[in-house]
């Protein structure tokens, strides 16, 4: 199972009482979000997903700098050493 590094927004990590940077094992993004829930509490999984089970539209997740909305969304495959960034979907002004 590939191990990846996940970086969370500082305020979210501190609200959850976890480190900003986490090492997680997962084959794809959907598994990663489930595993994050097991590690940090299921509320994190709920926050990252929409009610319909897709990706929360207010969250952007990047795998090695690429937005997963361009790489298969929750089915985006992960490989050893991937860097996952989770940030609020804020762009422009």
């Amino acid at each position, binding site marked *: 199972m590939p191990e990846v590094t996940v970086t969370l927004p500082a305020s979210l990590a501190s609200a959850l009482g976890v480190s900003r940077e986490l090492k997680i094992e997962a084959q794809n993004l959907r598994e990663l979000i489930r595993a994050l829930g097991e590690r940090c509490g299921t509320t994190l999984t709920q926050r990252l997903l929409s009610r319909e089970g897709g990706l929360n539209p207010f969250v952007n997740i990047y795998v090695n700098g690429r*937005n997963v909305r361009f790489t298969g969304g929750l089915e985006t495959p992960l490989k050893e050493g991937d860097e996952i960034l989770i*940030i609020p979907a804020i762009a422009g002004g």
Partner: protein
Amino acid sequence: MGTISHLECRECHRQYPAERLYFCPSCFAPLDVKYRYDGVRWTRSLFQNAPRSLWRYLDLLPIEDESKVVDIGAGFTPLIKATRLGQELGLRNLYIKNDTVNPTFSFKDRPAAVGVSKALEFGLKAVGCASTGNLAAATAAYAARAGLRCYIFIPREVEPEKIAHAQIYSPTIIQVNGSYDAANRLAAQAAEAYDVGVVNINLRTYYVEGSKTLGFEIAEQLGWQTPDHIVAPVGSGALLHAVSKGLEELEQIGLIGSSRVKFTAAQGEGCAPIVEAFRRGSDTVEPVEHPKTLAKSLAIGEPGDGIYVLRKLRECGGYAEQVSDPEIVEGIRLLAKTEGIFSEPAGGVVIGALKRLVEAGKVDSDETIVCLITGSGLKATDSLIPYLPRPLTTEPELGQVAQIIGR
């Protein structure tokens, strides 16, 4: 002085104190500043002696310590009745809100002034932004005025005039080898890693409040009336949402009656994810990975406020229009030759969209329409030159001039 009550999540409505929070930790949605509206005692006469800048609206801006206001004269720009452009398009009550005359020549002076002031209030020593160009110069200028360090993240494709303009204020410019969205992502990471107030990211909740003053001014300049229709350029959607919030706040404090403004969102073809979503009838915006439009200031492929624009358009019965590069240039030229106002391509998008509305019979000739012209054309002359006719050339002889003028 600002009378903030709290920050409120736009989705789940959880409330938070007015601190350095830029998204809802519960659901990731944006936060809005809420004021103690019943404490705001605005009357029409109050504004007669108010500053001729956006700071005339300080009571509904999120700055609590007036000594932290950074002012180089942003806002209170002219609202001009566009008689000749109106005649050209068959519209009797057309207005141009001319935000090209701001201190850094775009509407971004408004949110940058508020964002940098808030950074001072929070005691920050450095600010920054992710920018398609206009915000770069605005943030750098207000940072210079405030004596703060400034870090600007720009994408690979920005008009050279906009880079030069930002550079003159001596910020640190970081040009990212990628799209605006890549620059924005990197700025967001920097905002998390360092104690920098990136105005449109981790100060965004406060920063966007500056843009709503466009709505306040339009209402005030129309004699505390709202127009029937506002045509707004849309990149992220933050401007349209902010103008709408401004009008709602004027209603809330009872200065205007019930506002029924219809909005049109205008985008350039090649980066029109909000227009596409509107046409599909969808509530979600599919991002554009490789934006390609002459309107580079609107080339935001992942528009943060896209869903709020969609909601607003549906609620008000508005429209969404996308225009091609040639239509953008035609719009810029039409505005310049009829009203003497030189807009950057985003304004060409607005005029092009208005033309489309007229041609499709979506606007009435008597409607009061306001077009938001948000940036100066001098910021983007390079991209216009290929579309402009060459000057006539002549020897310095009157005889030759006679062939031109005397014909």
